[in-house]
């Protein structure tokens, strides 16, 4: 639980961001046409604190859609590699929703392990302080509570901001990194004991839920069992294989490596990929072990609710609802989960 609570008024939130701008690059939800997306702000007023979820998830801040891994140049004698790491400056990721913050903690399990440590990812993570903003209520497509989380979940955040009545916000400190950011801030109001209580109460209310969370171990075992069953016969019928669900998903992290070269210089890049694409598992021989949308969709569900549970001890879905909202043909992962729980076939 948080050890220090500070209070800030709605009016002062942008001012706090302005203070940060002196030291940090600040990335916050900003309005773009009809939706919000994370973007670098140059003034605190540009941040949008009210939209529930940005269209794109914040994963691209740590795991960009295209990442240059290294450059290369060849002449007759040799190949020269240029793997000077990119300059990474300290940044604050502000106004992340708790589901997204939690997804970043999940990505850490993939990109920052003893077996594999991704240099760029880890440097960006180290250089970033995550300030989350608890949700006042679940949007219609949100289902974090089904995933055992809640709108004030603290996983992955350095600071958590919770809105209190009368346009005041309580800022809870969760990590030393968060504490540093808060200490550096020149915030007028100190929290009273009452405020601290209000913060704790808000956290408890968010946790107090009537929704029954999925039992991820049970589900993972069931999924492994019904791999070849009729359960998968119809979900994919309408799937376009467009990959929107995975590109927008904060926890999807599959990538493809490509060389982009012209004459004798070039670069190796890493691009987002998607199990919903035909090309994803196509072998050079022309054989494709997952030849149709049936297998593609099954893979997406297996990866999120079975393989990740086996490997990282947790389902890789935070219930942000992006795939639910934006799938052009309404393939709703919540329906799949509900039916999975009830499915009796073998």
């Amino acid at each position, binding site marked *: 639980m948080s050890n220090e609570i500070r209070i800030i008024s709605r009016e002062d939130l942008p001012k706090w961001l302005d203070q940060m701008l002196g030291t940090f690059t600040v990335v916050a939800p900003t309005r773009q046409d009809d939706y919000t997306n994370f973007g670098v702000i140059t003034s605190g007023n540009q941040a949008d604190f009210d939209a529930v979820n940005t269209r794109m998830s914040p994963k691209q801040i740590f795991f*960009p859609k295209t990442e240059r891994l290294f450059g290369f140049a060849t002449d007759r004698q040799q190949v020269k590699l240029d793997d000077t790491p990119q300059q990474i400056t300290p940044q604050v990721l502000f106004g992340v929703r708790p589901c997204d913050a939690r997804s970043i903690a999940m990505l850490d399990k993939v990109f920052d392990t003893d077996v594999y440590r991704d240099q760029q990812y880890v440097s960006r993570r180290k250089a970033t302080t995550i300030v989350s903003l608890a949700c006042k209520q679940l949007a219609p*497509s949100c289902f974090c509570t089904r995933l055992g989380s809640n709108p004030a979940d603290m996983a992955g955040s350095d600071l958590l901001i919770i809105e209190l009545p009368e346009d005041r916000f309580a800022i809870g400190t969760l990590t030393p990194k968060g504490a540093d950011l808060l200490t550096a801030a020149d915030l007028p109001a100190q929290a009273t004991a009452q405020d601290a209580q209000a913060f704790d109460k808000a956290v408890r209310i968010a946790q107090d839920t009537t929704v029954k969370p999925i039992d991820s171990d049970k589900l993972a075992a069931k999924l492994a069992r019904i791999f070849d069953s009729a359960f998968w016969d119809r979900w994919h*019928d*309408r799937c*376009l294989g*467009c990959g929107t669900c995975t590109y927008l998903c904060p926890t999807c992290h599959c990538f493809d490596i*490509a060389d982009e070269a012209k004459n004798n210089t070039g670069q190796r890049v890493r691009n987002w990929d*998607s199990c919903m694409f035909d090309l994803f598992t196509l072998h050079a021989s022309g054989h494709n072990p997952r030849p149709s949308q049936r297998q593609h969709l099954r893979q997406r569900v297996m990866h999120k609710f079975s393989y990740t549970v086996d490997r990282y001890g947790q389902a890789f879905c935070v219930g942000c609802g992006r795939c639910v909202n934006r799938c*052009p043909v309404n393939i*709703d992962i919540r329906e799949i989960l509900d039916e999975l729980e009830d499915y009796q076939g073998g």
Partner: protein
Amino acid sequence: MSSIEQELRKIAADLLSTKKVDLVIGYESGSAGIGVRPAFIRSASDADRLVYNPLCGHNLSVFLNRHKGQKVAIVLKPCDTRSIVGLIQERQIDRDLLTILAVPCEGVVDISRIEKIVPPDTIRSLAIENDELVVQTDQGPKRLPLKDLLSPGCAICKITEPVISDQVLGQSQRKPAEGDEFAEVQAFSAKSPQQRWDDFCSEMSKCITCFACRNACPACYCTTCFIDASGPKWLGKTDHLSDVQVFHITRMIHMAGRCTGCGACLRACPVGVNLHKYTGKIRSDAREFFDFEAGDDPDAKAKPPLSTYSGSDPNDFFM
């Protein structure tokens, strides 16, 4: 339930129970907050899942190439029948196996227009009541007149009758839209080359190259799309604006005389890239230079300009 819906369910049940078709592709209600979605009906007892209302925007013809060799019945709006014409002319469809259930259309709702009025994170459900859309939100219901929510293509649509059909259900009450179908294109064409380029760059900078537009497009049925080809590789695989532009420019050239303006790409794009401005330009060019409009001529032998050559083809652009 509307009479069209009733009729549709009956026809679908008949077709399936008499084994005239193996599959009926239509629309059903979507999950909470999302109006409708494509439905795949394989038994007569499921036919009552079918719905039909102004939320049925999807152009279902995109699903046909997965069911080659099967007897399929498909629900199509007047404009969607034009895609089928193109697919027949390009020999992607065996007409004898296909049953076209042509439904009338008074224009379909553009979901992004609803989201401009009602924030998407507050929409609990959508329902049609007479000529209004009832949006249930956390703050209570909101009633929006359907005529204010029409898809961009519908507002300028001149097609009120199916171009091709086997069974026609009801009749559109709508008159062909007046005014210029290509007004947006003309405004675009009137700009200076630099302005057009800036416009294109700014639109393209939104694109996340997910290629959903291609996947949703009924005319994009190539087994190996140029963007997926690796030997030779046509498209650079980075997020650099030039790669994004090469994708769109090449795809749009492939759309000349083939894009019917059905709007499937717009509906699928997760980040609201306005592709219609550019595909519209391609359509108006196909009309101007080749006197061809995709889907207009139901003759199976009509040849889209991309699949034919004539000595009199305009070739002013050759040096």
